[in-house]
C-alpha cells in the first residue's frame, strides 16, 4: 500500500491536471450550451493549437506561456471564421448537418497535421517541465501548478465575460431563447460565431498550458476529447460550473486510478465515471432537467 503522503500528492497533481482538462471541456460545453451541437472538431483543433505552440516555440523561441495572448486571439478569430464562413453556411441550420460538418472538419485538420508534421509524437521541453515545487512533504510539478493557475484564471475571465458584458449576456440569451434574442436586435449568427471562437480560444490557452508537460501528435485530440466529453457529461451538458468541477474530479480520478491500477489503466476510472453518470444521473451534476 502507498503512504498517505503519496496518495495526497497524487491527488493534488491530479486536481492540477484536471483544471487543464476542465478548460478543454469548457470550450466543448460552451459550444454545446449555445449552439446545441457537439463540436466533433474540438479535439483536432486542440491538436492544431498544440502544434502551433510547438512550432512557434521552435521557430521564434517563444515560451508556451508567453504565447497565450497571441494564440488565444488567433484561435478566437479562427473559430469565429470557421463558424461564420464554413460550419454555419454549410449546415443550413440543421443540427445533424452541423455534426457532419464538424466531423469532416476534424478529419481535414488531422490530415493537414499529419501531412505537415508526420505521425511522430513530439514534446516541448522548458526549464520548468520537470521542475517541482516542494510544498511541505509534497512534490508538485511546476508546469502543473502554472497550468492549473492559468486554466482557473481563464475560466474566471470567461465567466466574467459571460456574466458582465453585453455580448456575454447575448450569448446566454441565445442559448435559451433564440427568437426572443433576435427580437432584441441580437444577431444570432454573430453570437454563434463568437461562442465558437471562445471555444477555440479556450483550446488555445489549454494547448499553451499542456505543452510543457504533455506530448503531442496529430491524433492526440481524440484522447483529450474523450476525457473532455466525460467531464461535460459528468458536469452537466452546457454547464460551465459543471465543467470546472467535473474537470477537477476527473483529474483526481485519473490520477488515483493511475496510482492504484498503473499508468496504462489510469483512464479506466474515467470511463467507469462516464458510465456511472449516464446510469445514475444522466443530466450530470449541474445539468438542466432536459
Amino acid at each position, binding site marked *: 500500500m502507498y503512504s498517505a503522503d503519496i496518495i495526497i500528492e497524487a491527488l493534488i497533481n491530479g486536481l492540477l491536471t484536471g483544471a487543464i482538462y476542465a478548460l478543454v471541456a469548457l470550450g466543448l460545453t460552451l459550444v454545446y450550451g449555445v449552439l446545441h451541437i457537439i463540436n466533433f472538431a474540438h479535439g483536432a483543433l486542440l491538436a492544431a493549437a498544440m502544434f502551433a505552440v510547438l512550432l512557434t516555440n521552435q521557430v521564434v523561441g517563444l515560451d508556451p506561456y508567453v504565447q497565450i495572448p497571441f494564440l488565444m486571439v488567433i484561435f478566437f478569430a479562427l473559430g469565429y471564421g470557421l463558424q461564420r464562413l464554413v460550419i454555419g453556411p454549410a449546415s443550413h441550420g440543421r443540427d445533424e448537418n452541423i455534426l457532419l460538418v464538424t466531423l469532416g472538419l476534424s478529419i481535414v485538420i488531422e490530415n493537414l497535421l499529419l501531412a505537415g508534421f508526420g505521425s511522430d509524437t513530439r514534446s516541448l521541453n522548458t526549464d520548468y517541465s520537470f521542475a517541482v515545487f516542494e510544498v511541505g512533504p509534497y512534490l508538485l510539478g511546476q508546469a502543473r501548478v502554472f497550468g492549473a493557475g492559468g486554466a482557473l484564471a481563464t475560466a474566471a475571465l470567461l465567466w466574467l465575460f459571460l456574466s458582465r458584458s453585453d455580448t456575454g449576456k447575448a450569448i446566454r440569451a441565445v442559448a*435559451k431563447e433564440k427568437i426572443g434574442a433576435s427580437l*432584441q436586435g441580437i444577431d444570432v449568427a454573430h453570437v454563434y460565431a463568437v461562442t465558437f471562437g471562445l471555444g477555440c480560444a479556450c483550446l488555445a490557452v489549454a494547448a499553451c498550458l499542456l505543452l510543457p508537460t504533455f506530448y503531442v501528435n496529430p491524433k492526440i485530440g481524440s484522447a483529450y476529447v474523450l476525457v473532455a466529453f466525460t467531464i461535460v457529461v459528468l458536469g452537466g451538458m452546457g454547464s460551465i460550473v459543471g465543467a470546472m468541477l467535473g474537470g477537477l474530479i476527473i483529474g483526481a480520478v485519473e490520477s488515483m486510478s493511475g496510482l492504484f491500477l498503473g499508468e496504462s489503466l489510469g483512464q479506466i476510472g474515467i470511463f467507469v465515471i462516464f458510465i456511472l453518470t449516464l446510469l445514475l444521473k444522466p443530466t450530470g451534476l449541474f445539468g438542466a432537467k432536459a
Partner: protein
Amino acid sequence: MLEVTGLVAGYGSTEILRGIDLRVEAGEIVAVLGSNGVGKTTLNMVLSGLIEPRGGDIRFDGRSLKGTSPAEIVAAGLIQVPEGRRIFPNMGVRENLELGSYGRARKNRAKNLEKVFDTFPRLKERIGQFAGTLSGGEQQMLAIGRGLMAEPKLLILDEPSLGLSPLLVEEMFALIERLNGAGLAIMLVEQNVVQSLELASRAYVVENGAVALSGDAATVAADPELRRTYLGL
C-alpha cells in the same frame, strides 16, 4: 408609420398570408384580430424580419424593410413583444431588461430601466429573480418592459392578455392605453375582441390569409358578421 401592402408569406409549401394590406399611423392603437391559426403571429414574425416574405412590401418610417435583418428592424424602432413572451428564463429580471436595449437606446439604459420599474414596481421587487420563475403575469410585464427598453416607435404586442386572469387583463389593457397616451403607436394582436376594439382607433380582421374587414374600431365592432363569428351574438 407602418404600411404593409400585398404581403405574402408562409412555411414550406403552405401559404399562410395571401396578400395582407394594413397600416399603422403615429400615435394610433390598431387592433389585428382573427381566429386561431389564421397567421397573426406569422405576420408579426415577418414584420420583425424573422420570416422572409414571399411577396408584397413593408414600409416603416418611410423606408422599405424588405431584405433588412431583425437587428436593423429593431434599430429602426419597430419592436415586438412576442406571443409566449420569449423572455430569457436563465437570466435575472434586470438582465432581461438590459438586453431589451441591446439593439437600440443602449445609451439610455439606466434611465429607461428606472422608467420601466416605475411602470412595473412589481418587477423592481423581483429584480434579481430568474425570469423563468416569475408568474405568468410577471413574465408578461417583463416582456413588455423589455420591449419598452428599446424606446420603440411602434410596439407590436402579440396576445399580451393570453393566460392572464380577468383582473390582470384589465390592468394590461389599462397599461396599453397609458403607453399609447404617452404617444406610442401600438399594433395590438389579440383574441380578446371586445376589449381590443374598445381600446383601438382602427381594426383589421384577418381571414383566410387576407384582411376581410377593416375600418374604425366602432364600425368593425358593429359589423354583424364579426358579431356572429367572434362574439357569438
